[in-house]
């Protein structure tokens, strides 16, 4: 499949949507709160309410739902493994499905967050949110950049995997139709992938340093982050809907 036909966590897509114009901090805090609520959910009704919320958020991003869904495909093996684990050693299929649902509820808003926030803005957002920690001598700026680069490289690495698989296919490799062969193939691809990734990281480090990063003076920013009216409204809406989700979870113990 063409990589551009799907959306993977970490990819930014230029659109004109209400999510794109929000301050990254609003989105980050909203995301964090939602994560906490999802962790606290106990009942099916709560899960359904949270799913509805995620659905609305995805719609607001003006990115087709199919892109999000296709972006989930690489996660499928992980999900199947957790399902299997819970089936064999856990509390049965119900628990497995609950975990699967929970993963979905976390991954989908995460893709929406990265798809609607420019990497640089994200870095700025994380940085300002973590600023208080710099009093404790935590290198906040470096930490924020690290997170953003890590997120940004997810699609690149997936592309690398795709390239190597294609090269193997073009030279006559046919995957056998059994359960183990995808794993064996993955291990065979993993080694060259790790090497190329380490090499790329090395180059990136040099490139960043060549642009005088970390000479101690601290970076200035061109666009300052500002909370505006839409952010106030969005925060209000997020807090309100999260309370509703939580209330539903408490009141309808189904």
């Amino acid at each position, binding site marked *: 499949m*063409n990589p*551009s*036909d799907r959306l993977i966590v970490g990819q930014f897509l230029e659109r004109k949507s209400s999510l794109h114009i929000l301050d990254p901090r609003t989105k980050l805090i909203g995301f964090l709160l939602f994560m906490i609520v999802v962790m606290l959910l106990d009942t099916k009704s709560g899960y359904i309410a949270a799913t509805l919320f995620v659905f609305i958020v995805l719609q607001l991003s003006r990115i087709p739902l199919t892109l999000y869904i296709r972006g989930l495909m690489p996660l499928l093996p992980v999900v199947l493994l957790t399902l299997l684990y819970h089936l064999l050693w856990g509390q049965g299929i119900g628990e497995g499905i609950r975990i699967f649902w929970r993963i979905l509820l976390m991954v989908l808003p995460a893709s929406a967050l990265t798809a609607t926030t420019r990497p640089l803005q994200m870095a700025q957002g994380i940085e300002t949110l973590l600023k208080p920690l710099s009093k404790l001598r935590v290198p906040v700026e470096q930490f924020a950049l690290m997170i953003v680069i890590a997120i940004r490289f997810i699609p690149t690495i997936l592309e*690398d995997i795709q*390239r*190597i698989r*294609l*090269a*193997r*296919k*073009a*030279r*006559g*490799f*046919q995957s056998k139709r059994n359960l183990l062969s995808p794993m064996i193939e993955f291990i*065979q*691809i993993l*080694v*060259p992938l790790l*090497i*190329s990734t380490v090499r790329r990281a090395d180059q990136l480090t040099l490139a960043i340093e060549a642009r005088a990063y970390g000479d101690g003076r601290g970076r200035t920013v061109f666009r300052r982050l500002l909370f505006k009216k839409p952010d106030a409204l969005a925060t209000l809406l997020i807090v309100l809907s999260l309370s509703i989700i939580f209330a539903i979870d408490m009141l309808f113990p189904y």
Partner: protein
Amino acid sequence: MVKSIKKETTAETRVGWELHDVSVQRSGRDVLQRINLTLTPGAWTSLIGKTGAGKSTLASLLKGLIPRFTGQYLIGSQPIATDRKGKSLVVPEIGFVFQYPEHQIFETTVERELSFALRMRGDSMSDIQKQIQNLLPKVGLSEDLLPQSPLLLSGGQKRRLAIASVLIANPSLLILDEPTAALDPVSRRQLLDLLQDWQQEKGTEQKRTVLFISHRIEDVAEYSDRILLLHERKLLAHQTANELLLDHSELLIQSGIPLPESIQLLRLTEQLSGMTLHPASCREADVLREVEQIWQIPQEGAKHESF
């Protein structure tokens, strides 16, 4: 039993590749529009076009990497094989070198990298050894490298290794997607010479077939029997280098491909002198000789007129 059948189909190499009215769509947009094309067996065909013209898509289509398209793709007058869902299958007898070949190396040693395609095909170990020994000198790789990790080679060596590991399967059609990108002029020439030697290698009953993708016409004009010009998803020309550069250079300009410097000089000379020039070929030496004659530049080596 299955294996012997497999061998037979690869032994009986199908030649002749034809596209009839082929269009490819991606995310609702056309990336190739009604392409009609016949690749001549034994010829070096170069595919020229600007970035985004659809060159790579056309190449992937020929290899069978594009599952769905409209129109007809015939290999040796048979339509391309499909799976049960009607998706095209990879064509095993076509060799494909992707862009930035050095990024496609994945094995643990040079030897394993080279033998990958042969092992997948099920050749015997002694056969594989023989073919590796045979190929190494031709691609300028030394035998000492065989047990080494391919990822420790130099950039140029990696590229040659990646190409060699496609050549080794002796493909009936070799497709190369911008293999000379980001190479210095000397390495570029070396690589092209290497490919030409391989294409015209003695001992094979016929010259091999090559489809070479590039966005610079001066790189390939000399080597190509035919040049395909792709512009905005459509095939604009399918001519020899001489025809395209000397008679139809306006097509190149129209598709945003810069003319080689020698041809630009020729056009300038024509404008200034008011004469129409007819160099013997589009080769730089021939064009320059023609230009020099007009300006009557005395030159010592100008005695040998024909070769």
